[in-house]
């Protein structure tokens, strides 16, 4: 092995930081999936009849579907009867305010660097904290409420704002959309709901923090964001999970709905447990994220920093329906050891003068496989549509793989579609150059990787950009070459 590879190898063999568990007493459903389990979940959440029916319909459809085999990822067949579909940390009473939240839970999030205590928050970020299947706390609810902004857990939204949930649930990702979306629709347990009224610019970052704690549990959350005319919201989600030897399934659905001139910025820092050095354990992250620019001049922007999960399968997409609407996708996906990622986006241009921009930066290290898969579809009536795509791959070492699968369908001659792709390796020359200036190997790799991912990282809200930079360095620690 060349020296180069040795350094890379060392750099990528750093341990996962959030691998601890906390003994939370939990209230769980029995293992397995059938209509009774769905009724159990729905009853636990005291849901209205229509929602139970909606779930059952999704479940019945799911039983007729087959797991997708087209992604460039490999894993043993999942036994869906071996998963617990509902697990909630036991709380004696439903907390009415943060003061009533179990201190153990507050401590859990504190350990993750997330403060659920509002007065200690200086940066002005409202947080919805979700452990396993339920939301445990949402901060700044009142302050946001003064502006008419609704930010709460999905369960609460079902209780308090059923008309909104009924109207938009499944409107962007229908329950029968795909295998995992159907599964999620049947068994989703919680998530965040966010509604920004007409003309309101949300004054703070909204964020949801997801944590899987219980063993043998799947996490199936749903996020729904509706931005009314001329409103704006920036939303961030973060996620971690304990280190466990068995794989755990995370199948989420995110739906974004942007009306005329509305803008939704959605950022993800995904750090689910990636499995150990030998590929044992880790989260299967099978997620459907889609937004619709329903109104003219609306905008949806996805930014994702994907460092965790043993397998990632997700394509945050934009349906550009309104004229002059625009969609963006900025992604950094890092895979190390035996991680596999098949991620990218879909930009569906329906409206006239619609624009989309895709910037994807893949980083592969160890024995990992990293695929970009993206579709740009310009429909017949989408006059003067524009797309720019840039897909870069960075390889560290010679045992990993990077793949690019771009699909471009153009049905209108006035379209302009550009696609650029590069593949590079962190060179021994670059590392030596840094070393000669006094920068050690690990710091050199962090510097080079952050430089490479800069165009994406700068899209993140500032507080998170710094975190993301550290996370990138940490994920690759021990892997230079």
């Amino acid at each position: 092995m060349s020296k180069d590879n040795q350094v890379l190898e060392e750099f990528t063999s750093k341990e996962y930081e959030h691998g601890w568990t906390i003994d939370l007493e939990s209230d769980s459903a029995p293992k397995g999936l059938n209509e009774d389990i769905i009724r159990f979940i729905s009853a636990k959440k005291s849901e209205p009849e229509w929602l139970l029916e909606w779930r059952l319909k999704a479940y019945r459809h799911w039983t007729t579907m087959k797991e997708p085999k087209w992604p460039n990822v490999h894993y043993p067949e999942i036994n869906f009867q071996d998963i617990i579909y509902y697990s909630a940390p036991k709380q004696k009473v439903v907390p009415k305010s943060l003061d009533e939240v179990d201190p153990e839970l507050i401590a859990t999030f504190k350990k993750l660097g997330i403060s659920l205590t509002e007065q200690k928050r200086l940066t002005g970020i409202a947080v919805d904290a979700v452990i396993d299947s339920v939301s445990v706390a949402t901060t700044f609810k009142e302050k946001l409420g003064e502006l008419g902004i609704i930010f709460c857990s999905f369960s609460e939204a079902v209780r308090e704002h059923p008309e909104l949930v009924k109207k938009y649930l499944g409107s962007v990702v229908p329950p029968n959309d795909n295998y995992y979306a159907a599964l999620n629709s049947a068994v989703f347990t919680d998530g965040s709901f966010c509604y920004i009224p007409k003309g309101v610019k949300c004054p703070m970052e909204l964020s949801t923090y997801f944590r899987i704690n219980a063993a043998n549990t799947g996490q199936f959350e749903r996020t729904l964001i509706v931005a009314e005319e001329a409103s704006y919201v920036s939303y961030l989600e973060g996620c971690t999970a304990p280190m466990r030897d068995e794989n755990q399934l995370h199948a989420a659905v995110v739906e974004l709905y942007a009306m005329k001139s509305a803008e939704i910025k959605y950022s993800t820092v995904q750090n689910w447990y990636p499995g150990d050095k030998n590929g044992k354990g880790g989260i299967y992250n099978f997620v459907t994220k889609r937004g619709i620019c329903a109104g003219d001049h609306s905008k949806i922007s996805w930014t994702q920093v994907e460092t965790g999960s043993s397998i990632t399968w997700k394509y945050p997409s934009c349906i550009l329906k309104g004229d002059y609407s625009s969609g963006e996708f900025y992604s950094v996906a890092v895979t190390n050891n035996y991680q596999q990622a098949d991620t990218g986006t879909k930009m569906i241009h329906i409206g006239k003068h619609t624009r989309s921009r895709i910037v994807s930066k893949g980083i592969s290290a160890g024995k990992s496989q990293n695929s970009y898969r993206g579709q740009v579809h310009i429909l017949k009536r989408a006059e003067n549509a524009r797309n720019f795509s840039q897909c870069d791959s960075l390889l560290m070492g010679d045992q990993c793989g990077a793949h690019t699968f771009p699909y471009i369908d153009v049905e209108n001659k006035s379209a302009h579609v550009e696609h650029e792709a590069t593949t590079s390796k962190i060179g021994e020359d670059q590392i030596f150059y840094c070393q000669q200036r006094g920068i050690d190997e690990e710091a050199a790799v962090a510097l080079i990787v952050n430089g490479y991912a800069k165009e994406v990282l700068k899209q993140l809200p500032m507080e998170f950009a710094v975190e993301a930079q550290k996370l990138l360095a940490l994920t690759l620690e021990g892997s230079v070459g």
Partner: protein
Amino acid sequence: MLKIKNLHARVEEKAILNGINLEVKPGEVHAIMGPNGSGKSTLASVLAGREDFEVTQGEVEFLGKDLLDMNPEDRAREGIFLAFQYPVEIPGVSTVNFMKTALNKIREYRGQDTLDAVSFLTMMKEKIKLVEIDQSLLNRSLNEGFSGGEKKRNEIFQMAMLEPKLAILDETDSGLDIDALRIVANGVNKLRTKDNATIVVTHYQRLLDYIVPDYVHVLYKGKIVKSGTKELALELEEKGYDWIKDEMEVA
């Protein structure tokens, strides 16, 4: 400051350095000249700690420490600076950010506090003047899309920032027009003090018109075959390297 004793080095199975002896004292400028393939750049790389080359024999002492025992970053932190013949590009990392990282790593090693943004910028402004570099260049990705001259000027700027005790300029004149050469050489000259030293590796005499050496050494087949003062460089320029080769063959 630097003592090289009987240094042998090879790349894969090929011996490139075959017993180099050289001593450099503070305040001195040494020029290493020689035909292509004589081992000049190898010597520079071995001193900087590049691991493509394997040292098979000999020792190198730098400020009383065993240089060959140190990893490349510690050599840099001890005060060795190599101005690269081919500076590499690092996309997305500005020279400013790069220098800030480097400087703080070096300061950390020396037990000094890291520089705050204001002190760093003040220092940078000062050095910019010294080496006549365009500030906008420093905010761009390191060496990406730089002309040959800009890359070399950037190397000298970095040298100014890091204030090395021993600077090794590896073919810094290659690919430079006469104006760029003068600016680069001026920068190097301004950075000279009685406490630091410079090794100039070059194929041509012309750089030595601007950076005047105290000693000139001629390298041939991995050995220093002739040493002298700056006049030796002029003689070489006049007679060409064949003169050395012929002399060696005769001997």
